[in-house]
């Protein structure tokens, strides 16, 4: 297979799913004729027509609300919110209706839908185009929140999200959209939601990250391992909620030490939950307190200062060193 970027991988997944299942449709602002502002949905309008590739009016609440109706009535809408900074306008529907469609109707009605959105910083963008607020969605019971980190996993996880019987918020790290290409299997095999991925195995330290931070962390680990000879295990969280605590705990029981690297601000971010899960499932194996490297609890600064907010390589490296030295 050729090498693909994450944009191409997601685009391919959408093409294949729409081909395979004619109840799948895409909708959102500028997704049809324009192919989306990041070109994730390029070509779908030409191939599947205006009925299955919809440019909607400009209203996020309307988009997700209509998607729920479609999902209840036999379709599988894959919606796009142009930037996650505008997705807060969907929260009323997500929390108030989408996430509880199954539970309130005792599974008589269900909401198999996917809400995609780019998120995250580091691209010198305008206000509301850079934050990482996966916690808002993860804090909604009945909703799955997924964040891929590579072209291949984005492809597999999106297939899984579309085929999942329940609503999935699919957050795409825009910093990784075109940052690199990867050898690629386009075999239409879905990945597994609520399952972490072990990126590299190690014995001394467990590091957990996701999204664009995973790559920065991986890079730091490679150098760190070369410099110190430590053996570090890296885990890609992949699904923020419901979280795969067992894979993380299993790793920590082996290594006895852990660091979590998250782009999002600190308070009540996924790192907090990961550390709580380690407490629940592996506390007696710990040889050092679990460290977290996170954004600070400030409103996402405009881009002149965004690189001080997003965990930098030196910050991550210091956390690894301190945790190992404890």
């Amino acid at each position: 297979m050729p090498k693909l970027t994450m944009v191409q991988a997601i685009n391919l997944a959408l093409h294949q799913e729409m081909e395979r299942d004619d109840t799948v449709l895409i909708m959102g602002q500028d997704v049809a004729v324009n192919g989306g502002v990041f070109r994730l949905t390029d070509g779908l309008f030409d191939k599947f027509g205006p009925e299955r590739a919809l440019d909607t009016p400009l209203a996020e609440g309307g988009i997700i609300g209509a998607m729920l109706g479609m999902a209840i009535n036999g379709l599988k809408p894959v919606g796009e919110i142009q930037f996650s900074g505008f997705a807060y306008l969907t929260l009323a529907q997500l929390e108030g209706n989408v996430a509880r469609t199954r539970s309130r109707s005792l599974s008589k009605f269900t909401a198999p839908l996917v809400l995609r959105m780019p998120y995250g910083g580091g691209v010198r963008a305008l206000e509301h185009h850079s934050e990482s607020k996966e916690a808002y969605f993860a804090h909604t019971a009945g909703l799955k929140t997924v964040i891929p980190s590579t072209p291949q996993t984005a492809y597999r996880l999106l297939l899984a999200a579309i085929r999942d019987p329940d609503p999935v918020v699919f957050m795409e790290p825009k910093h990784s959209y075109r940052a690199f290409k990867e050898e690629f299997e386009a075999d239409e095999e879905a990945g597994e939601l609520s399952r972490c991925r072990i990126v590299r195995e190690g014995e001394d330290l467990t590091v957990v990250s996701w999204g664009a931070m995973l790559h920065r962390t991986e890079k730091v680990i490679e150098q760190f391992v070369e410099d110190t000879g430590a053996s570090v295990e890296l885990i890609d969280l992949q699904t923020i909620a419901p979280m795969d605590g067992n894979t993380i705990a299993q790793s920590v029981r082996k290594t006895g030490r852990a660091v979590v690297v998250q782009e999002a601000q600190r308070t009540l971010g996924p790192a907090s939950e990961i550390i709580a899960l380690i407490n629940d499932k592996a506390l007696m194996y710990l040889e050092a307190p679990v460290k977290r490297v996170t954004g600070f609890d400030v409103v996402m600064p405009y881009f002149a200062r965004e690189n001080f907010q997003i965990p930098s390589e030196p910050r991550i490296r210091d956390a690894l060193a301190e945790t190992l030295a404890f």
Partner: protein
Amino acid sequence: MPSKVIARFSVSYQQILDEKGGVDEKLDPKLPDDKLLEIYRVMLTGRRLDERLLKMQRSGRVGTLPVSVGQEAASGAAALAMEDDDWFVGSYREVAGRIARGEELYKSMLIYGGFEEGNISDNAPRMLPLSIILASQIPHAVGLAYAAKMRGEKTAVLAFSGDGATSEGDWHEGINFAATWKAPVVFLVQNNHWAISTPLHKQMNNRTIAQRGVAYDIPCLQVDGNDALAVYKATKEALDRARNGEGPTLIEALTYRMLMHTTADDPKKYRPEQETEEWKKRDPLTRFRAYLVNKRIWDGDRDGELEETVKSEIDAAIEYYRNYADYKLDQPFDHQFGTIVETLEEQRAEYLKYAR
């Protein structure tokens, strides 16, 4: 049971300057010369500032940005119809309007260069920062207006949005609040016919945006948004009504986005160049200049003079931006709350350890 018509409505359209700059004498608001020259100066400054910002973006000196080229009359002339104490509530495509309110030219550079410091201007104290979350500013405008009224101020609010933004719930909610409260606010929609790649007919089934005012029972009209006189007159009358306790007005200004949505966008992908060519003929600056020439208050010599002044103002702004010195690394921590928060101070120390 009677079946009868219980209400009928109409929506008016106003144009004062034709496409060649000829004026409808009956409608001409007969503004004093200095006001007319001010309108032209503001529109030209907006145009030139946008052009320079585009160049700065291409050479990496600022980030992604929207420009307002072609829409200078719709925001610039409207803002010049305001009183000093009125509030300006913009979206992000009102470059000329912000200049009209007195905002320093370097503020746009700061904003698009990634600095919150560009959001505020002592020269324009009654102006809210850019609102990028579409239509979210509309209810704010209503709240400002309510507060002004309650505090006994005789001021009004001018709130801008785009055509696409009128699809958001916030837009409708805000207008309904204003209508219900008879709040002193004027809603001006810059209908530039596109919301990124989405044309009007995919945005709404309405023939006009103005007619939505009918639904909320407030005065509404459509104006030629590239006609500075029509925009000025409609806005002035609406603001006066608002200040006199007569409630809100909805103005739809028909205009056109001559360039890309933002520097990250490529309109070739979705709109016919023919359409853009057509709109070139209605350029708000050309028309207004022709009107000034006809009135014998403008000529070729004055073009050079004004261009020169505007250029040196923009040069000075660029120079200021380049040497921007108030760059406090931990500024974000200074402005989260009005009180000291211990955990945040701990985080500030960690931030400063790595910020460089």
